[in-house]
């Protein structure tokens, strides 16, 4: 039952569709209204007097309803006579019951100032925001979608309390780290689950080409302009229905859709801008470099190399030139975006059609990112009971990639930053040459040819059947398909391609299909009891395949395909796993006052052995809406007050190998003497199973002063058990490691979200939104400490947070000798590895965002700041650039090295220059561990809405012109370019800044146009 499983399943689905349509003929019962009287009217916003489109107007006691058109107009043809009683409803406005005596009528709707009636998508169903029990935050993406980044998740930075977005790099479309309420796993994945319109999408890079610890983001395949809003599910009540996928939180993305009864509209968004590094590294001049090298040699009693050429030296320091490579590598980059969307709907059909193009250059040549995307969303009512629909997104993401991380070959920043400034790019013959073991920058930039194209389809097809007013059945089939085509070609002018060219081509394909059924029931009984039920199941299969080929030995640099290579090798990789899940949920509310729900999900994963496959993930949540109580009803300044709490368990198996529990022998195609071989690759762990995270949450939601002040406060405690951990096996076994369930990790913290409307009058409004969060991460159980990162800079050990920095604590530089003095932790009188200690981690004490929105007449102004306080960054660039003169011609020297100790009495923290790998210039020296706190002026945006007189003349319904600055300033003590910069070689290596271009400062002009 391998292949047949899917086809059998497919037959079932077809069967289901057949049943659906068989019922269709029975269900169609229509009543024609008797044409007798006509009622016409216009619905406008009470404050702005602007017409409102899409308001549902229903005659009381009659099922028939109409919707207003784009001018707010509606018309009724009915058998009744005046006066009419009308029921009006529209999202964001208070519903109204009104008696109409005249036709045409002018009806004013009042805005519901806080969106309590707003509907929120929770696991597989929706609830009104006021009745939410879980901790869920909804972010309209509109506010941030014009920030020039590749993926929408980077735009969310600072928008959601408790969601830490580490951007890592200034390269658009590269992977970032998102940590929702901390990190729970060492060897499984810590990324949240991304669900786009119900499709569980892959968020792990398919990149296989080594770009020096950088990976592309698969989330960048999605056009942010297509997103209506994003919901972030944080506590167990909210995530438990996602069971095995929910431990790191869930990000639900709802894309834009047309609305029934909405006239066709066209949205156009355009922007264009320029991005530039706010600052670059400050390097020594050729002369300063030479002086430092001479000083180093004097200090260790060796002859100075920079002496007169006539004496056999390299020339006096004053004779050295300074070659500026950074200006050649960095540029003012262009960022451009254009997207257009067409949407609307008739009574039975709603559609959304869009197309977008985004192109962003990186400030570091020659890296660039572009994305062309297309979306088609459709909802069709077949009749009163049956609705079918589809969401489809196709995108092509192209990238010119560059190795900006570590590794000597092809490293752009190695060539640009790490090459000493005094060395000419030309040799004596006037030929461009690489220096210090790195590529020649000019040759590198001119010949760089590394790139990828990602083709992505994400879509689903659903059918919904309203069995009765209370019962609804829904079935969905979703697909996430990604073809990822990479190539690299290194010609013989580059180190990697020497002596006769090297090319790699790799094509990966990741496919996930999910079938999902849900049956929901919701009924209000006797006016005060609301009961909801949900049962459902999903089946999921994910397959990954990779074929790659490498060729060496090209005739000339003009031939770049592997077919022209003298030697070629190829590999193939294949991986597959399946998940079967069943879930249910019961929720009950008494008088919208006491709320309780219980949910349970069971997940079976093919990654584990029989007996260990199934995991059960329950959750319970309760809430009490205090404002519904009599004793608070008189307090008119309280509009809403809710206490809620939840407890539940979620799981994780993501990111581990699909066959991690088995004993494996793998084949080696070119083992020995051209013959194939087999090798024992992995030891079995029969008992391998789910990592489980229990989470407790307690929170308070309040809306006060006519909803002008609202806040949400959460405290949570998460404890992860059976954590998936790669445990070291004694080498004597012949194996390095195996995967086991043994780590335990806790995260606890609080989150505060505060929204205020400070001023609101006819011409001027000012609102503020602040969120701040703190997470304390701790490794509760870890059998043996584990090191990660270059020079073992990261240490995981019991009792300390994950991603802790393990360094020697430099106390001071002895003013008499110029030697660095380190803390002798074990007091044995010498500085050995025993004296390395944990001095901080990547975790901030608190972090968040602050936005202020102002409107004055037709102008709008937004300011948005993000901050992080108390986190550390290891400035690995300085480790290389502050080695005194000891690295001589092998590395750059940073200007900060000029502060070194030179003579007795000098007070400085840069020791005497006397070598590398010795006391003063230790691997793992704490001197380069810096405070990474920052306050970033993320965006400043000023917009102008063109007046309606002009618009009417142009037949435009809305036109906004804006100017925006992104990353305008960053206040930080960090001495590097960007406190968020990090080489991201492995998930457990974070916060090490090496060879990474900073996030640029950018300016852009744009328009938002609606026709």
């Amino acid at each position: 039952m391998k292949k047949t499983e899917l086809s059998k399943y497919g037959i079932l689905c077809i069967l289901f569709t057949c049943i659906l349509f068989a019922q269709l003929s029975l269900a169609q019962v229509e009543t024609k209204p008797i044409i007798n009287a006509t009622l016409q009217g216009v619905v406008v916003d009470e404050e702005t007097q602007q017409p409102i489109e899409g308001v549902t107007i229903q005659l009381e006691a009659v099922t028939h309803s109409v919707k207003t058109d784009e001018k707010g107009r509606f018309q009724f043809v009915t058998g009744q006579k005046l006066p009419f009683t009308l029921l009006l409803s529209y999202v964001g406005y208070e519903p109204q019951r009104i008696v109409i005596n005249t036709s045409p009528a002018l009806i004013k709707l009042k805005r519901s100032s806080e969106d309590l009636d707003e509907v929120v998508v929770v696991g597989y169903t929706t609830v009104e925001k006021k009745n939410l029990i879980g901790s869920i935050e909804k972010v309209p993406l509109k506010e941030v979608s014009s920030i020039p980044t590749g993926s929408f998740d980077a735009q969310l930075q600072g928008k959601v309390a408790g969601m830490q977005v580490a951007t890592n790099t200034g390269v658009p479309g590269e992977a970032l780290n998102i940590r929702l309420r901390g990190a729970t796993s060492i060897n499984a994945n810590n990324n949240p689950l991304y669900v786009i319109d119900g499709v569980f999408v892959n968020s792990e890079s398919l990149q296989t080409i080594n770009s020096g610890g950088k990976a592309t983001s698969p989330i960048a395949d999605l056009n942010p302009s297509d997103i209506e809003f994003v919901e972030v599910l944080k506590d167990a009540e909210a995530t438990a229905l996602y069971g095995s996928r929910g431990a790191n939180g869930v990000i639900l993305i709802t894309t834009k859709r047309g609305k029934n009864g909405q006239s066709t509209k066209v949205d156009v968004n355009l922007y264009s801008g320029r991005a530039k590094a706010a600052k670059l590294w400050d390097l020594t001049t050729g002369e300063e470099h030479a002086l430092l090298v001479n000083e180093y040699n004097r200090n260790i009693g060796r002859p100075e190399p920079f002496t007169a050429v006539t004496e056999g030296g390299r020339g006096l320091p004053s004779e050295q030139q300074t070659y500026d490579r950074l200006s050649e590598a960095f540029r003012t980059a262009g960022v451009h975006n254009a997207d257009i969307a067409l949407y609307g709907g008739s009574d039975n059909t709603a559609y959304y059609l869009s197309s977008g193009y985004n192109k962003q250059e990186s400030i570091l040549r020659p890296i660039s990112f572009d994305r062309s995307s297309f979306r088609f969303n459709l909802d069709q009512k077949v009749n009163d009971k049956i609705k079918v629909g589809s969401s489809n997104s196709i995108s092509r993401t192209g990238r010119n990639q560059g190795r900006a991380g570590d590794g000597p070959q092809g490293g752009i920043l190695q060539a640009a930053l790490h090459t000493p400034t005094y060395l000419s790019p030309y040799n004596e013959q006037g030929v461009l040459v690489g220096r210090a073991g790195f590529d020649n920058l000019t040759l590198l930039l001119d010949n760089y040819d590394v790139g990828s194209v990602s083709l992505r389809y994400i879509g689903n097809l659903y059918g919904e059947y309203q069995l009765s007013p209370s019962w609804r059945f829904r079935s969905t089939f979703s697909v996430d398909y990604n073809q990822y085509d990479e190539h690299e070609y290194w010609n013989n002018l580059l180190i990697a391609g020497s002596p006769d060219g090297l090319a790699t081509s790799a094509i990966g394909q990741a496919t996930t299909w999910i079938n999902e059924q849900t049956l929901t029931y919701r009924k209000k009984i006797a006016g005060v009891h609301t009961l909801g039920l949900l049962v459902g199941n999903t089946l999921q299969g994910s397959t990954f395949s990779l074929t790659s080929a490498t060729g060496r030995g090209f005739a000339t640099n003009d031939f770049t395909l592997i077919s022209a290579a003298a030697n070629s090798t190829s590999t193939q990789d294949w991986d597959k796993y399946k998940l079967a899940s069943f879930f249910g949920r019961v929720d009950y509310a008494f008088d919208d006052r006491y709320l309780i729900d219980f949910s349970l999900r069971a997940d079976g994963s093919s990654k584990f052995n029989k007996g260990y496959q199934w995991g059960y993930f329950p959750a319970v949540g309760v809430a009490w809406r205090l404002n519904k109580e009599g004793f608070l009803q008189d307090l008119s300044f309280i509009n809403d007050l809710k206490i809620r709490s939840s407890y539940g368990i979620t799981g994780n198996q993501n990111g581990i190998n699909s066959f991690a529990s088995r004993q494996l022998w793998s084949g080696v195609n070119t083992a020995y003497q051209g013959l194939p071989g087999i090798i024992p690759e992995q030891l079995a762990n029969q008992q391998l199973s789910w990592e489980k995270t229990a989470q407790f949450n307690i929170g308070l939601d309040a809306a006060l002063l006519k909803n002008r002040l609202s806040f949400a406060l959460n405290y949570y405690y998460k404890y992860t058990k059976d954590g998936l951990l790669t445990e070291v096996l004694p080498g004597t076994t012949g194996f390095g490691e195996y995967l086991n369930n043994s780590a335990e990790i806790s995260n606890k913290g609080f989150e505060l979200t505060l929204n205020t409307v400070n001023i609101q009058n006819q011409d001027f409004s000012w609102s503020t939104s602040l969120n701040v969060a703190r997470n304390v991460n701790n490794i509760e159980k870890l059998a043996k400490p584990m090191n990660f990162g270059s020079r073992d800079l990261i240490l995981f050990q019991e009792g300390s947070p994950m991603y802790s920095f393990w360094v020697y604590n430099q106390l001071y530089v002895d003013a008499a000798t110029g030697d660095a003095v380190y803390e002798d932790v074990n007091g044995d009188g010498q500085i050995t590895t025993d004296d390395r200690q944990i001095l901080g981690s990547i975790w901030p004490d608190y972090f968040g965002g602050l936005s202020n929105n102002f409107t004055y007449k037709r102008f709008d102004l937004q300011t948005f700041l993000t901050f992080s306080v108390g986190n550390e960054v290891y400035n690995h660039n300085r480790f290389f650039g502050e080695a005194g003169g000891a690295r001589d011609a092998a590395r750059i020297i940073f200007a900060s090295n000029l502060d070194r100790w030179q003579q007795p009495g000098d007070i400085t923290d840069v020791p005497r220059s006397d070598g590398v790998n010795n006391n003063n210039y230790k691997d793992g020296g704490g001197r380069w561990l810096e405070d990474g706190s920052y306050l970033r002026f993320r965006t400043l945006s000023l917009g102008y809405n063109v007046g309606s007189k002009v618009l009417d003349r142009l037949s435009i319904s809305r036109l906004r012109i804006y100017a925006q600055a992104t990353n305008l300033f960053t206040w930080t003590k960090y001495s590097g370019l960007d406190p968020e910069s990090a080489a991201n070689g492995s998930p457990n290596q974070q916060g090490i800044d090496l060879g990474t271009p900073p996030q640029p400062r950018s300016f852009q002009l744009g328009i938002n146009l609606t026709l």
Partner: protein
Amino acid sequence: MIRHYFLYIIVLLASSSCSSFLEVDPKDSISGEDVIHDQASAQAALNGAYVALRDYYSVNFQSIAYLSGDNVEWTGSQSQIQEFINHRVNPENSTIAATWNGIYQSVNRANNIIKVLSENDQLGIAENERALILGQAYAIRALSYFDLLRVWGGVPLITEPTARVGENAGVARSSSDETYALILQDLSAAEELLPQATNRFTFTKKTVWALKARFYLYREDWTQAIAFANRLLTDADYELLNPYYSFFKNNVTGTRESVFELYYNANELNPHRGQWQPQTNGGTRQWAPNAALVSLLTTPATGGARSELIARDNQNRWYGNLYYRSPASDPTYIVRIAELYLIRAEASAHTQNFDQAVADLNKVRARALLTPKPTSQNQAEILRAVEDERRLEFAFEAHRWFDLVRTKRAQDVLGISESFRILLPIPYSQILADPVLDQNPGYSF
């Protein structure tokens, strides 16, 4: 109507809960035991064992051997490798950990073959084929333990394959004598099983004799060392090529000079080369000949034809040029016939057969286009001449450090003040993983 849907759901649940939905088997690996079950799978497993040998002989083990000696300097930025040159190797050093794991991986792969083939004659493998595969597995294990011993002294002796977690852990270190005993036992088993053939890329009886000659040299059993060296030195299939560089120049492999070398070709690339070649040739030149060696090799009286071992790049920096091929198919030389001449020379000097010693030494010198050493009756002088000769003859092969340790000359020659540093520390990660391992004396943990 509603009943239809429930029926559908029930059918669906029934079909999906069927546990076979959750059965997915890997394609690029095979799962389970009894993987070695016939001649083809045994041969494939043997090829896999050679891969392990080749892996640890590619960079890590060589780093220890080269950089701990006095020929090669490190130009990379990582201090953990510089530790070998400074002779202050920390237990946390990642190269020693990788080497330890790599060699035991080779041991485990050999153990898998030895276990199945020595215990099971039901596999339908012809006896001569079985002996051929089993003999090579013993030889691979012998060489692996020999290399472990050379770096660390006595080590845990693992002779059974690891089938599941928990096995082959918690085994304490054996003494170096016990380790030597297992090596000899494995060499003898291989000697018995393998045919007396000439194959320069896989183990034969002759390869095992060469290893035995080396073994007895380390054990200072001079008579046996001479006896086993003689077996190859009298074999017409092996000879010193003239001049020196004929054994590696012009892309040759498997020359008559070679007793045993690890095979590479255009599809099986040797990462070794990248460490030596300069950037202009696509390498990193992280291993580079140091000034002393350059001086010895470029001085005609000491370098002779061996000056071809080094070359200069476009920035006038010297680089090692023994591993130079493109694509990187350079063999890793394990035993060359020159070594057997020098083994016999050294052993003869110890057994007072000074004429033989000088004669053998001069054979090696002659093809390096060097003037012969005059006959001498001074044992110390001859031994020093052999030592110096070995330094240059095997300048970029894994000998110098082990030679100096073996002859107890390392402290004098390399200026190591602390005697315990002659043995490298057991990797800290291994002591953490298996607390039963005792650290070598003198190291912090």
